[in-house]
């Protein structure tokens, strides 16, 4: 199993995928405070044009909250990128036929799937730490004296949202034979959940709540509003992981 894990590491580094993810997430992380910081300057530049149309631009006050708002606004794109980068983790191996050799060499399928989980969840966690760390660092540097309430529950929730999406990627990878099918599966689930989100009774359990960390920081939601969604996401993640482990045992390689 260690050997297969080392192979995953070699693959991530030598194919440059890890580097790309690192750079992207670093840039995403920088963007949040940068946009917040640049907003007044941008508004200043456009002031004349805007005022001619009759809108007065007052003093714009930017703070850490503006940067955290960006942090959550960009969450969707961050999630999409990580799903795209990792959706091929199993199907690419099916398509090339590389796992056939590994299985016929006697590595158990459970271990293969476990290593893939470690790779996928680990990569997301590392990438998310970069994204969060960079934003957090710049925020502390620019607006360090400001106090921000309830940051960590929201940050954790967004991480969990990513875990759930990647659990779905693994789940569909255990059945699909190409990347399109995996992405379609994940997309379909997201769309269905999106519509279910309109049912008020359901919405507090759905993972979209996990992306509302900014509401928590702004005091419009409380931690207890997040609990049902967190519990539901944890259960779904574990369930998807277990099903993919079992299903992978009997799939055609």
């Amino acid at each position, binding site marked *: 199993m260690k050997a297969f894990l080392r192979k995953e590491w*070699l693959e991530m580094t030598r194919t440059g995928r890890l580097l790309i993810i690192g750079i992207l997430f670093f840039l995403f992380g920088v963007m949040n405070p940068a946009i917040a910081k640049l907003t007044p300057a941008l508004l200043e530049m456009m002031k004349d044009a805007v005022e001619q149309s009759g809108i007065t631009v007052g003093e714009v006050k930017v703070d850490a909250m503006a940067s955290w708002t960006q942090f959550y606004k960009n969450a969707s794109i961050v999630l999409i990128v990580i799903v795209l980068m990792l959706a091929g983790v199993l199907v690419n191996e099916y398509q090339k036929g590389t796992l*056939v050799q590994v299985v016929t060499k006697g590595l158990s399928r459970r271990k293969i799937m476990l290593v893939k989980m470690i790779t996928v969840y680990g990569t997301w966690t590392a990438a998310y730490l970069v994204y969060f760390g960079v934003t957090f660092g710049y925020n502390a540097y620019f607006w360090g004296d400001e106090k921000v309430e309830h940051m960590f529950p929201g940050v954790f929730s967004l991480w969990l949202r990513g875990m759930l999406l990647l659990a779905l990627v693994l789940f569909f990878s255990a059945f699909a034979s190409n990347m399109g099918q995996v992405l379609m599966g994940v997309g379909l689930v997201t769309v269905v959940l999106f519509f279910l989100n309109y049912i008020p009774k359901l919405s507090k359990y759905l993972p979209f709540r996990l992306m509302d960390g900014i509401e928590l920081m702004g005091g419009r939601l409380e931690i207890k509003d997040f609990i049902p969604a967190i519990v539901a996401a944890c259960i779904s993640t574990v369930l998807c992981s277990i099903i993919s482990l079992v299903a992978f045992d009997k799939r055609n390689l």
Partner: protein
Amino acid sequence: MNVLEISGLEKHFGEKQVLRGVELQVPEKRVFGFVGRNGAGKTTTMKITLGLLARDAGEVKVCGENVRYGDTKTNRFIGYLPDVPEYYTFMTPFEYLRFCGEITGLDKASIKSRSLDMLELVGLGSENRRIKGFSRGMKQRLGIAQALLGKPKLLICDEPTSALDPMGRKEILDVLVAAKEETTILFSTHVLSDVERICDEMALLEGGKIVMRGTIDEIKQKRRKPATEIRLEHKKDSEALLRAFNLLRKTDHGDLILEDPALLPELLRFIADNGMEVVRIEKQETTLEDIFLEAIHKQA
């Protein structure tokens, strides 16, 4: 002892029945040719043996243990060379073999020595490039190295020579002959000259069943039809001969074929008495190809 025993093996793909009760026993330390045309079910049989495909009926035993679909323990006895082996191309050959050794569970010291030995055996000893830039023949040879790495009791090769040029083919066959010292080889192919060159025994798969099996010599003996081929210089002589011996058969090229050797002296006398001019008189050699075609013809 039989390294591989297959009995009553059946497999459908949808409506199509590919295997209809395959019976096959492969004894130890042989190079066993598994012959059949494309689509006969050779790869299916091998994949079932490796636990990569589920079977519909029958039994497969490797070294006396049952093969299960999915996670099968019997794979520890087997080295497998797929028809087109695929690798992690970001690794070097040595790294790949070390990876294979580790997942097979070999200890560190033997992984290193064995990897170097195997790379030497297949002529990749000095190759430090990543696999990405390898030719097909090199990949095939690396495939043999990885398959033999764990000293398997059974080496399954799925058409290892089909995609190669004559040079690459010769190299692979030489390596397989060398590997025979250590292991039993099940060698699937539709190239009969390869079978004649390296196999001790063979079985012919046709219509989802084994229709013929035995040592190469046995099979040739059994099927030997010592026909004689006669070619005369002048057409009118050929026609005269045909009229005189109505058992003679004429081919498209104008040659005459005599199936019954008992008639030969009389025929030769006739030729001599009539002063016919002979181009050649030749005893036909039965090739595996004839046998193969005949067997397939019978099934159809």
